[in-house]
């Protein structure tokens, strides 16, 4: 059946193109699953064969169109047409089938069954083949399907859940209503300044701060002989800055508390991170680097609130240091000081990791060049070093800021009489059962985080977040001045001792009869853990492992698509992964509850929803790792493979995977470990039989089962450390073998 169209020349005997479309197989699968498997399900269980819920039994016109689309796709894919023309026809049939299916679910709000899942996935594959063969998307069916699926995932598991949060904040009982948002934002729990019961006059003090700072900045501008409009502007800006300082200092409620904590934590983390990075890259004393490597791994392997809870034992009212050593009895760690310290301990290593990259990518030749051109050390610092380190500092600052705002574990343990935005999300949903209020807090938190993100991007200009990679330059770096090195080493020493004391106190606590009261040795807590925690621990490990594989694969796929292909929607996919990276865990957790509790996407109370949450939470980490890895590989290797008629899946498998084993395994391990230690994003999602170790651990801490919690914490930390060391060691050995084959 040869069809000749006027626009496309007829094919010769050995013409290029495909005789059949590759879409025939997925189309056939779609037809078979449509006919043999149920389209809906009655409740949560997936594999109930309910005769009423077969697509044919449901008899909805839209479902007939799904079948029609699948059958048409199958027939068309076998027609001997010009490949591109056939592709266009298949796009039409595939879209009709897929679209009708999706529309039916949206309209009928039936929980999807396994048949629907498979049929629609197969139709997406049909569409992928069609888009590729028609030439609408450059790349083969795999690339086209991947683009399609990744975009769908971003919509379904990132954008849509966040949209439900926004919706819940402003739509109450089905109508648009800003009253909840207003009530939340004017509530004393959120923010208030004037407190009639306090001894001090908050408003007056705040105004005084505004005036003082305004006068100071104005005076400075006059001193620098600026023009009148500039002085006036400085005066106003200074006044605003002063008022903000005043509000943060004297205001109460979640907003000023969270922001004040951020204002303490983010600069401190950035500075400490910079100090450690300088020390690590330019210190003369080598063991310092080794110890910094260990420090940088600690927060990844430690559930976020463990340090907070160890701090109570060191620094609390009855703390070993505060009470035992100095005989003090204060509650000072409950509140901003304690939360800030815990966050600084947890997030400085993250800042360090970021800054290590930008310090090590500093080319010493640049500094030398500046000095040979007659620039003094300070001029060099200001004109060369600072602009080069600035993006790293900004990134570190931003990340500490996001982490601090999103942190949930530390405030819930050490918050004391202060409340935080992230914990209010949790408490308003679980305690006060006000989903709209939780959504309102979520919106505020999201706005703050995304605002910070976009301000940073404006400041640094362009540069998508997935392409931020630094390739370390070779060459010896000039050592830092000796005085500075000694000073920084001292800081590092104090830090190390403190962190070590915290970790030791956890281990000690796990063996102490009654922590804080009776320090007789016992293994009772480990027995308790084995009984009550071990099954949960195993289950968590299983869920984390299951989630790590798709997180890594998806992250790799996104990185590959974004960095190697140009396609419509690329920015969107980048934006989606940015969003899932920046969104605070509690907000994403609430979003998943809103999005997946009813309708076609009924997923709550299943392992699936936990795994999905973890996959999309950890995907951005994998993306970053994969982008960095791909940047080291010449794209012409992939093009060479394509030119040798390999499809992209073959190219990925035979060329990129072997070259990226190390990166991929590292990504996998980190996805696994961070899934093991995640709390905020899964705390809403656990259900009977789907309990997670960290959530259980937090519950134990809350209920005062501290010995047992310490035992589980110890086991968690030790096993994660073991995983990282052993598996990463293995990965390095494998990649070493690949290198040996090369040379």
């Amino acid at each position, binding site marked *: 059946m040869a069809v000749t169209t006027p626009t496309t020349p007829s094919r010769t005997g050995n013409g290029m193109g495909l005789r059949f479309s590759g879409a025939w197989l997925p189309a056939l699968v779609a037809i078979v699953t449509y006919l043999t498997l149920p389209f809906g399900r009655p409740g*949560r269980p997936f*594999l109930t064969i309910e005769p009423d819920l077969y697509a044919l039994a449901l008899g909805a016109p839209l479902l007939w169109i799904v079948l029609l689309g699948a059958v048409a796709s199958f027939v068309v894919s076998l027609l001997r047409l010009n490949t591109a023309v056939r592709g266009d026809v298949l796009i039409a049939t595939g879209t009709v089938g897929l679209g009708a299916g999706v529309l039916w679910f949206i309209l009928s709000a039936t929980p999807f069954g396994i048949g629907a899942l498979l049929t629609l996935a197969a139709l997406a594959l049909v569409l992928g*083949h069609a888009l590729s063969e028609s030439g609408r998307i450059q790349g083969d069916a795999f690339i086209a399907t991947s683009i399609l699926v990744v975009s769908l995932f971003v919509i379904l598991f990132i954008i849509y859940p966040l949209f439900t949060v926004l919706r819940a904040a402003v739509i109450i009982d089905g109508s648009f209503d800003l009253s909840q948002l207003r009530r939340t934002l004017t509530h004393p729990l959120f923010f208030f300044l004037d407190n009639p019961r306090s001894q001090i006059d908050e408003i007056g003090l705040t105004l005084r701060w505004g005036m003082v700072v305004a006068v100071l900045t104005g005076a400075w501008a006059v001193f620098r002989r600026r023009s009148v409009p500039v002085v006036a502007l400085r005066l106003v800006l200074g006044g605003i800055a002063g008022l903000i300082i005043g509000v943060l200092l004297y205001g109460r409620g979640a907003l000023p508390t969270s922001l004040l904590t951020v204002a303490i934590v983010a600069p401190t983390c950035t500075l400490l991170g910079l100090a450690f990075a300088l020390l690590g890259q330019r210190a003369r004393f080598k063991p310092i680097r080794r110890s910094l490597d260990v420090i940088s791994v600690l927060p990844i392997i430690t559930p976020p609130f463990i340090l907070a809870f160890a701090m109570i034992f060191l620094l609390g*009212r009855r703390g070993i240091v505060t009470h035992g050593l100095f005989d003090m009895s204060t509650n000072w760690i409950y509140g901003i000081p304690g939360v800030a310290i815990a966050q600084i301990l947890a997030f400085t290593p993250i800042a360090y990791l970021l800054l290590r990259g930008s310090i090590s990518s500093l080319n010493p030749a640049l500094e030398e060049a500046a000095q040979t051109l007659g620039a003094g050390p300070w001029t060099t610092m200001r004109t060369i070093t600072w602009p080069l380190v600035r993006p790293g500092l900004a990134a570190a600052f931003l990340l500490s800021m996001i982490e601090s705002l999103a942190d949930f574990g530390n405030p819930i343990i050490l918050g004391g009489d202060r409340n935080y935005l992230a914990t209010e999300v949790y408490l308003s949903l679980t305690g006060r059962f006000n989903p709209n209020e939780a959504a309102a807090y979520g919106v505020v938190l999201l706005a703050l985080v995304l605002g910070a993100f976009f301000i940073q991007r404006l400041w640094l200009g362009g540069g998508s977040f997935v392409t931020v990679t630094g390739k370390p330059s070779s060459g010896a770096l000039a050592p830092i001045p000796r005085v500075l090195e000694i000073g920084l080493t001292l800081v590092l020493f104090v830090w190390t001792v403190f962190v070590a004391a915290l970790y030791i106190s956890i281990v000690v606590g796990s063996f102490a009869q009654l922590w*804080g009261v009776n320090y007789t040795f016992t293994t009772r807590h480990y027995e308790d853990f084995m*009984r009550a925690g071990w099954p949960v621990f195993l289950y968590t490990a299983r869920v984390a492992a299951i989630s790590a594989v798709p997180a890594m694969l998806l992250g790799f796929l996104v990185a590959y698509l974004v960095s190697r292909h140009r396609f419509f929607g690329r920015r969107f996919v980048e934006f989606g992964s940015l969003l899932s990276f920046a969104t605070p865990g509690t907000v994403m957790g609430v979003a998943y509850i809103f999005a997946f509790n009813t309708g076609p996407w009924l997923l709550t109370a299943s392992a699936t929803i936990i795994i999905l949450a973890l996959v999309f939470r950890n995907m951005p980490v994998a993306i970053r790792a994969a982008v960095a890895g791909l940047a080291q590989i010449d794209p012409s290797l992939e093009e060479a493979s394509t030119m040798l008629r390999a499809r992209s899946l073959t190219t990925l498998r035979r060329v990129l995977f072997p070259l990226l084993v190390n990166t991929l395994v590292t990504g996998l391990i980190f996805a696994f470990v961070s899934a093991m230690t995640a709390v905020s994003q899964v705390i809403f999602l656990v259900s*009977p039989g789907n309990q997670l170790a960290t959530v259980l651990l937090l519950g134990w801490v809350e209920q005062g089962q501290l010995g047992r919690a310490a035992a589980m914490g110890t086991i968690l930390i030790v096993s994660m450390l073991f995983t990282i060391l052993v598996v990463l060691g293995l990965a390095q050995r494998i990649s070493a073998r690949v290198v040996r084959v090369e040379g």
Partner: protein
Amino acid sequence: MKRLTLVLVAAAALFLSHAQAQRVNLLCSPDLAWCEALGPAFTEATGIPLEFIRVSSQDALARIRAESANPVFDVWFGGTGDPHLIAMRDGVAEMYIPSTWDDIIPELKSVINEEYIPLYAGAIGFVINEEALGDLPLPRSWRDLTDPMYRGLIAMPDPTSSGTAYTTLATLLQVFGEEDGWELVEGIHMNVAQYTSSGSAPGQLAGRGEVAIAIQFMHDGVKFAAQGFPLTVFAPEEGVGYEIGGISLIANAPNRDAAIAFIEWALTPEAQAIAGELGDSYQIQSNMNTVQHPLAPNFDEINLIEYDFDRWGDPAVRDQVLTRWLNDVFAIPR
């Protein structure tokens, strides 16, 4: 690509084929040790597996409401009575009359108008670490707690998440009347170091000396003292309210038969004895045939108030109290 299609199909089928058998999904609000002891004993008695999650009673009510369209849990075990009452009145839990109904202590049934199944009873009290109190005098009454000398020394649960704390609020409002009651609540708030989300956690804090005074159920205090914490437990002189913990069948429970089997089992004397023997829980158990644990606080020695369960369990009243506490008390900086 072809192979990938087939692999995907197979993987999806495997992944989704997690069929669920009958088991009890338990929402468990009392002490963790009790919750943990229930599963093995129940499975041994009936052969039905049990999974639980420990959630404070307020949070539990929130969860049941949130999931009412597609319930996850079958039974809600323990926790203060008012949320059980609300769950019944809201229709998210359903009343089930167990075969042991006649064996349940009649007073417990009558004060709550037989609106839910009583599981145990416990009274509010002070749990005090005299060591941590130092030279300060022992507080004897509710009013003593408002004395500024106890600033930063008191821990109590958060009323928005813990039923224990709500019972405390309701007690104060009943003993002192609305106006004085709120003033007292405010006075205590100024001295509170920490609100915990779990009802039993304040005793832990007191036990370790993080605070000196914990306001919570006396049976929890007794438990901590038994564990070795240096704690004294008593009831303040103005009188204390009490709770009648409940056990409820969730409406539209996914495993209804198993749920009923569990409720039947949980109300037997043998099952109730587990609380004291294995569960570190010393409440008065509701079945009159249960041998009460020797450590269980004796109600005859406590100045119990006439707790009006009907009024204070009413959702509207409850919302009103909690909102007022949140807006007018909790928001006051300390």
